[in-house]
């Protein structure tokens, strides 16, 4: 069985800045995978490259076996990407937004509509379906974007800082939802700067620094028999040279 995400020798520059520098990463299917790293480490760029939003300067990316460069549409069909800021149309209503997403992914209308209503109910948004998105709080917007991402039941979800701006209850709901997806054989890849979240919910982790993966595996792999916390390991691996 192919990996959910397979990245080899990935490089991306922005002018003189090397955002991703020969990054290798393999995420097996059915994992809840956390990508950690300090600010500017290259997490967001890596995720945007994996989602086909940016073109790499070098290297290859395969999503569920599909080469993102050679067959981007096939890769995108099985993929969902959530940016760090929820991007929504302020003047649309939730169901209109989801209908648009369903159209983009070419979903069967009846199935999409039923699934949209289920997702809105699951995420606690059913009481506000007639309100324009501009009236939503940040947490509600994040939930709606998540509903859009789940609409086509993607095999691989890539989420950039999905818990930012959520209150405790909403964060818990999202974490449970993502864990349930991983348990059902789907793959969830998220970036987060909250180490505690990564330590508690992720089945595998990778730590990125200066555009490369500097450590990866399960929490047990990272501890390597010691009793160090993830924070200790993270700080040690990402410490800047004096």
């Amino acid at each position, binding site marked *: 069985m192919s990996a959910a995400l397979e990245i080899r020798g990935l490089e991306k520059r*922005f*002018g003189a800045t090397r955002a991703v520098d020969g990054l290798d990463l393999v995420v097996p299917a059915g994992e809840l995978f956390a990508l950690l790293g300090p600010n500017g480490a290259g997490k967001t760029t890596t995720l945007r490259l994996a*989602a*086909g*939003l940016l073109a790499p300067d070098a290297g290859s990316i395969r999503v569920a076996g599909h080469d993102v460069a050679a067959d*981007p*549409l*096939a890769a*995108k*069909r099985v*993929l*969902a*990407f959530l*940016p760090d*800021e929820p*991007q*929504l*149309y*302020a*003047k*649309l*209503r939730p*169901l*209109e937004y*989801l*209908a*648009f*997403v*369903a*159209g*983009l*992914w*070419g*979903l*069967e*209308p*009846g199935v*999409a*509509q039923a699934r*949209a209503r289920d997702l809105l109910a699951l995420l606690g948004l059913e009481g*506000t*379906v*007639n*309100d*324009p998105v*501009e*009236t*939503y*709080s940040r947490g509600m917007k994040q939930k709606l974007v998540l509903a*859009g991402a789940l609409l086509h039941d993607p095999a691989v979800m890539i989420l950039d800082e999905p818990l930012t701006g959520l209150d405790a209850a909403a964060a818990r709901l999202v974490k449970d939802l993502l864990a349930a997806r991983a348990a059902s054989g789907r793959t969830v890849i998220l970036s987060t700067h909250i180490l505690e979240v990564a330590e508690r919910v992720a089945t595998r982790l990778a730590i990125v620094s200066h555009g490369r993966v500097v450590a990866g595996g399960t929490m047990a792999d990272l501890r390597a028999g010691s009793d160090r916390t993830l924070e200790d390991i993270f700080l040690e691996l990402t410490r800047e040279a004096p």
Partner: protein
Amino acid sequence: MSARPASLGFLVAFEARLAWRRVAGDRRRIAIAALVLFWLGLHAAAFQGLAGLRTEAFARVPMAVFGATTLFFAFAMLATAFGLAAHGLFERRDLDLVFAAPVPSRTVWAARTIAAAAAVAAFPAYFGLPFAHAAAWHGEPRMLAAYPAVAALAILSSALALLATLALVRLAGARRARVLAQVLGAIVGAAVFLAFQAHAFLPESLRAAFGAWMASPAGMSWVGDASPLWVLARALGGELLPLAGLVATAAAAFALAVRGAARAQAMGALEAFRANPPRGAGGSGRPVRFGRSIARAVVAKEWRLVARDPRAILHTLLPLLYLSPLLIAGLRRGEGAALMAPSVVVLAGFLAGGLAWLAASGEEAPDLLAGAPVRPSRLVGLKAASACLPAAAVALPFIVLEALREGGMPFVFAACLAGSIGSSALVQIAGAEPGARRDLARASQPGRWTSIIEHLGAAGWGFACWGALSGSAWGWAGLGIGLFSPLVARLARPSTA
């Protein structure tokens, strides 16, 4: 020498820097060079044009012509000021930053009003002052009164717009006031245009009656040299009393506006807009249709967004408003009817360009589109179609009129129309600002260069239409401009990192 921090001068300089960057974008040197060169050219034209005139010739220019022109510019300035007032009060997200600083709020509002006045004055000053300079050179130094007159008029416009917008805040609340102020500004601008067009589309009998009234003593009291309507023109022409009156009125309005804005801000009247609008006001909500078609999804989304955004509606409806006199002219016979087709070609291009700008540069979820399994070129095509279809639908009755007109050339008209609509949409899409404008409310207006190219392209197609209909070879020049405008827009687009 730089202004003392937190002083009025400091704040005005900061506003000026922001405004200049908004206008010139990344190509400041090119913009300065182009503006200076064009201004010198305007001076040359003005000096040449006025060279033959002498003092007595100036005196022979009917006050009605001078006065009406001045009124036209004054209302245009007021229309611009309304947009700037709404922008300054509601759309700039720096109020918390500025008012958290140890600066008196009246100083802040004074700086913003002065900056708005400078923006309002920029256009008439840029195009009008060369003629004032030329007139002064040719023996009419009183025309230099244009300096204080335009400045006072700009201050007055900005202050009146700010006061009116604050009144709207009190009457309708901050959220509605923003929309109402923009609508009011647009109506003021369009009303002036339509008023000046009114004579052209009045029925013959009414025109004759109006002419007779104008020649009567009652009419002369309104349009004669002594008419109170021309007081602004007299101020501009250097008459001391009207000029002093204008300056005093502007100063009083400025003081009132600054005081009113500071008070409204202190009372929290402007806060409502910054909070999220209340939920639960969405109504019952019509059932939403899910469909498989990507084309339907994209076009429906774009049209919904336009229909629900007051600024977008304004952007769309204004060209339609300007089309209405042409429709009337088209229904009649004569010279006006012959000019209908080229004018419609230009305005339909503007309409398509405006819609394409909203679709391309106003995209709020670029990552969603980039992550969807749809070819980017297809999405661009669908966005262009969503802009072109309404413009084509609006233009359709005019094609029918042209077909019914004796000697009309509906196919030529339709071809130029298609060219204008298509090239305007392509210009806006090709010149779309890199990166997303995540909020249409924040996206103030299309990029200046893109707008200029789009307008030139549409005008080129209009010229081509006129050339084809009248048999003039100059139409080919218009065709060339129209055809190449999308390419120029693509080349002029700022490069991305």
